[in-house]
């Protein structure tokens, strides 16, 4: 938390726009971006005039591979939002590419910005005037709260458990080493080098395992599996487009337009969703459409949340009932679409069938109720009504960043042990790793080592 380092973040909320911007602010912004940005004709980033948009590629310096084609702009201090040097990288390749770009930027020495930190800097550096100070404070506390709740709910599941386990084994060697150091004359079983190496090695493997799930290839898997389902022509593809804010799926008034499954990633109020538009379900003879329907069922099986779409301008059909039965055991939201049209649908019946699942009236065409839908999803998520299935996935770049740092600390420790460095030096790196892991799960680790010493060892005389 210092104002002299360089920070970076994806500054457009993920998925809310087609393009993601990785924004870097601080003293080293240009240098950092310069290390990964390749402009045509090898122009150096320092030659780029302020406030121009420049085409180029982001290249991973390690593999030499291009990560994304980007538009990069440089804004030199002090005439910028934060009054620091700012580099903005417009990524084209969607979320996964922008995440990869951000990762590279962090590897090159930037720190992931805290919620509201750009604005905080803008204020601290005199860019924002006094009257807005309170608004800035509100912003920070609000953003942090959401981020925190979000992080926590994400962590409810496997991730926090796994991190806890790693921390526990690190804590146990730390406590043992510290007990031996602080109470040298007690008969504590001294920890062996082999034990230390084993524990560190195991932790390194565990962290690597966690990090693997966050590799770009697998980021595709992240997000809550959300499936939009409904009979043909109810407006499923329209909803997908509305949520994405772009024309991703083809929309026509011909029933059965969508034949294949369309997957997209969006971020709703901080919650990453993988949203799936499906082929409308109806009893059909058309083979292709049939396959689509089968696939829909498959996706349903994997879904964390189902959006069931009904047509307000139509009566409840056999197909609708079939669909509702199909998703019976799933957490779902029932959307009565086309509410701009005269209503034919019997709402009471819908509510009856809905049971505890919420029912919302929307009109995708008129953009009515879309925000309510987003809110509904967020509410259900935070209440823990929807949760992610399957294995632990690191969705959060902050987590990834901290895990990588912890990994490096542990590698240093491993190296130090093998070089025969004394215990007090080895603990420097192990402690650092332990604190980094603690940061991920938001645990203050203050006196835990000391507490552990006293609960495990009978020391003192």
């Amino acid at each position: 938390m210092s104002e002299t380092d360089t920070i970076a973040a994806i500054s457009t909320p993920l998925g809310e726009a087609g393009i993601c911007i990785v924004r870097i602010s601080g003293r080293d912004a240009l240098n950092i971006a310069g290390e990964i940005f390749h402009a045509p004709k090898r122009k150096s980033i320092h030659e780029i005039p302020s406030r121009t948009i420049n085409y180029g590629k982001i290249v991973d310096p390690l593999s030499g591979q291009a990560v994304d084609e980007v538009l990069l702009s440089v804004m030199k201090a002090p005439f910028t939002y934060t009054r620091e040097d700012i580099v903005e990288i417009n990524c084209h390749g969607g979320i996964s590419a922008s995440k990869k770009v951000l990762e590279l930027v962090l590897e090159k020495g930037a720190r992931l910005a805290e919620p509201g930190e750009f604005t905080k800097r803008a204020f601290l550096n005199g860019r924002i005037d006094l009257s807005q100070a309170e608004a800035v404070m509100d912003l920070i506390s609000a953003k942090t709260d959401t981020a925190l709740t979000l992080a926590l709910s994400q962590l409810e599941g496997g991730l926090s458990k796994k991190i806890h386990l790693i921390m526990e084994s690190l804590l146990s060697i730390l406590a043992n080493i510290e007990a031996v150091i602080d109470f040298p004359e007690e008969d504590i079983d001294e920890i062996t080098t082999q034990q230390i190496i084993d524990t560190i090695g195991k932790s390194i493997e565990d962290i690597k395992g966690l990090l693997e799930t966050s590799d770009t290839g697998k980021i595709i898997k992240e997000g809550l599996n959300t499936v939009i389902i409904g009979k043909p022509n109810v407006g499923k593809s329209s909803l997908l487009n509305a949520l994405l804010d772009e024309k991703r799926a083809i929309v026509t008034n011909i029933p059965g337009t969508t034949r294949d499954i369309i997957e997209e990633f969006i971020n709703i109020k901080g919650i990453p969703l993988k949203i799936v538009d499906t082929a409308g379900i109806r009893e059909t003879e058309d083979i292709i459409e049939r396959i689509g329907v089968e696939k829909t069922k498959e996706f349903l099986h994997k879904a964390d949340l189902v959006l069931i779409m009904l047509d307000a301008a139509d009566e409840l059909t056999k197909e609708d009932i079939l669909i509702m039965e199909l998703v019976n055991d799933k957490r779902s939201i029932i959307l009565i679409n086309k509410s701009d049209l005269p209503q034919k649908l019997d709402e009471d019946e819908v509510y009856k069938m809905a049971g505890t699942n919420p029912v919302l009236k929307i009109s995708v065409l008129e953009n009515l109720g879309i925000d309510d839908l987003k809110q509904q999803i967020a509410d259900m998520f935070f209440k823990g009504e929807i949760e992610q299935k399957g294995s632990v996935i690191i969705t959060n770049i902050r987590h990834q960043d901290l895990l990588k740092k912890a990994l490096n600390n542990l590698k240093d420790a491993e190296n130090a042990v093998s070089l025969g460095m004394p215990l007090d030096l080895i603990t420097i790196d192990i402690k650092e790793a332990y604190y980094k892991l603690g940061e991920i799960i938001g645990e203050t680790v203050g006196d835990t080592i000391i507490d552990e010493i006293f609960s495990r060892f009978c020391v003192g005389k």
Partner: protein
Amino acid sequence: MTTYKAGKYDVIVVGAGHAGCEAALACARMGLKTVVFTINLDSIALMPCNPAIGGPAKGHLVREVDALGGEMAVNTDKSLIQMKMLNTKKGPAVRALRAQTDKRIYQDSMKLTLERQDNLDVKQAEVVEIIVKNGKVQGVVTRTGAVFEGKAVIITTGVYLKSRIIIGEVNFSGGPSGLFPANRLSECLKGFGFELGRFKTDTSPRIDIRSIDFSKMTIQYGDEKIIPFSFTTPHIEIEQVPCWLTYTTEETKNIILDNIGRSPLFKGDIKGKGPRYCPSIEDKVVRFMDKPRHQVFIEPEGRTTTEIYVQGMNTSLPEDIQVKMIRTIPGLENAEIMRAGYGIEYDYIVPTQLKPNLETKTINGLFTAGQINGTSGYEEAAAQGIIAGINAALYVKGEEPLLLDRSDAYIGVLIDDLITKGIKEPYRMLTSRAEYRLILRQDNADLRLTEKGYRLGLIDEERYKKFLKKKEMIETELQRLTETKLTPTEEIQEKLTDELGSSPLKEPSNLIELLRRPEIKYDSLKVFDYDTQHELPREAKEQVEIQVKYKGYIEKQTNQISQFKRMESRKLPKDIDYDKIKGLRTEARENLKKVMPDSIGQASRISGVNPADISILLIYLEQQKRIRSAEDDK
């Protein structure tokens, strides 16, 4: 009660334990007219617990006190009967000296030091009242009605505030070793609105050396070559006295468990919270039921007494049980107890009520130091004592306080923990509490602090010159090692592989690079040294070796420190109103109000204050700054 005017001082120190002695000496040495009061002149620098000084972290504190110009290390060297360097194989940061002393000599020589100190009067009296006017301290009143005026008062009354001695079913108001408690002072402090807490601790029985069968114990000698505690002691040549090690037995455990119903600790007669790191034997047996035996160290209390301290057998069990229990230990079958072990409960001042200079937040000129602040241990007391003394003197002189932070010294860690985090048990220093411990080594305490001590007037010219000389020697030697280059000739390679068991050079390199190899010690560089005039003193060699060998880690910690310093330098205004700052979470707000931190850094260490709260504080600070500058413009 009739009172009379008895005298005027710059600084009054109440209590002459380990904190009081350092405080009084520091003030007097800084040229202030000082008086120190003790309940009993024969109890100056008393060691009511074991006769040892130092150990990990504690030894570090002693070295720091010494580096600042304090007395504890010097006095320990004078009264030494055994010395050990602990943790020699665990790394440079955690090596630590531990001394066994002759208690009597320790007391007598400290008493004499006080008595001979210019500007210092030593008096026997019980101070019962502190005089305060308009939020400022004015002086003290003794039990016999003497009124002493003082510009600053330092309370270092240890465990004497409302102390109660507990031995089994017997308990009475009293201080350690049969001394009087200080009851009225405790009431007086409460009257000023201070929040007091209650702690307990206990001590072990003393037995007669003539009743011990040493053949059943393991003898433990001191180090062959004594490294003195004080940077000013050139060397120590004494006949050392050994200690012995024995163990409790299954029978010891049974006796304790059979009589646990009579333990005041388990019956609930003792309500004060005791330390986890210094548990009584009954506590250890109950909490670690599986452990078959516990260590017992037999430590002589001095050369001129047959009293022996039984380290590891702290207890407040009834006297008859103490006798039975002690006699189950191999070698102590016929032990005669001379003084029984006892538990002691006492009041302490909740230390979050103190400022970093150890002055109370609410009364100007009133300082507290030592066990009254909730710490335990002679060393922790001395460390606070010297800081309170220095700061009381600076307060009287109207100068800026001496503040040590967590990266300067263990003393800084100690004080910051006390005033920022508060405490739940008697606080003991541990190396694991120091986040920058590789920098806060016992060997470099002088390099860290002696300059400060000199500027305060606590280090004399002669010592300072020696210190500068040592610094220069280290610099020159580092320079020389950098400049001495070796080329991979056959002769050199042979020396490396055959004589030093290292690997041959791949390219020309200097001595620094060689010394960085784990298997090469500073002394082994001699084989390459054609210029043999460089025989450095031990302390300088040690510095060179550590600074070179652990450079990478030292840099790592130095970087952490500069981060830390940045946050410490962002000061929070003294009159900040946390209720007016929107956006702080309630828990953070309450704790900030309680601690009233000095800096953003300190605020971030308060429990319940998270990074978002810190961001909000930063913005608030900036907002205030701009309001002020806008007003200035008008």
